[in-house]
């Protein structure tokens, strides 16, 4: 299906920490937008999973955050930054199974230590930057298949 993008599209969503009821709303909106644009299903799926995990991390750990997206004919760039506690050891946090989530988060079905690995797995470029006490920024790029 031809991708219906003739100009660049940008936008952003606010994410409120602790708001489990609306958790996933930002990613769902972005998914709808990509569907409307006729983006390849596998690309939509990868984007949706990567952004949903990032959104959940903001909801679980941070006071608030923002998801910014930038769609071009080449692909999708996502930037998620939060006002959260930051990550002390990024290398450790990237390890599958490692999590600092408290028990109540695990009882809600999160904090399995798979979020960051899932984001990395589903994006073509994955960057994470964090300052303890200030927050975390995640940048992901998902390329469209090139004909």
């Amino acid at each position, binding site marked *: 299906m031809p991708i219906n993008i003739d100009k660049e599209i940008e936008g952003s969503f606010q994410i409120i920490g602790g708001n489990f009821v609306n958790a996933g709303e930002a990613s769902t909106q972005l998914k709808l937008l990509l569907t409307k644009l006729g983006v390849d299903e596998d690309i939509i799926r990868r984007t949706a999973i990567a952004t949903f995990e990032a959104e959940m991390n903001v909801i679980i750990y941070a006071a608030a955050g923002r998801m910014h997206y930038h769609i071009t004919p080449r692909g999708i760039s996502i930037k998620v930054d939060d006002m959260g506690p930051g990550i002390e050891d990024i290398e450790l946090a990237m390890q*599958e*199974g*490692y*999590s600092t989530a408290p*028990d109540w988060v*695990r*009882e809600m*079905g999160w904090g*399995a*230590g798979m979020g960051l690995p899932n984001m990395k797995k589903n994006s073509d470029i994955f960057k994470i930057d964090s300052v303890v006490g200030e927050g975390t920024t995640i940048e992901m790029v998902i390329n469209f298949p090139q004909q």
Partner: protein
Amino acid sequence: MKLSDFAGELSLEVKTCKEGLEREITGVYVSDLLSDVMANSRAGDIWITLQTHLNIVAVAGMKNLAGIIIVGGRKLPEDTRQKAEAEKIPIMTTPLPAFEAAGRMYRKLKEQG
């Protein structure tokens, strides 16, 4: 039936307490929620889960579970392994997802009557 009877079918890798494989299986419980396991599992059950967190050992100990099978090929953290070894809780891993690990155990237990 014993856990060792499932070793091949589930491609089990024994991580702690090898002798636990020879225990008779009386039941199986599948869950990733510790509170659920605390509330609903029965003594002697094998617990199938994706959780690898240290607390699984305490739950298995308190509920007298026969052992834990960690699914999805997840790596067992060293602190969990050491605690399980010390408390004699058998832990095994399988590359299968929970649905299939449970399914294969269920089918085999049913077929044995």
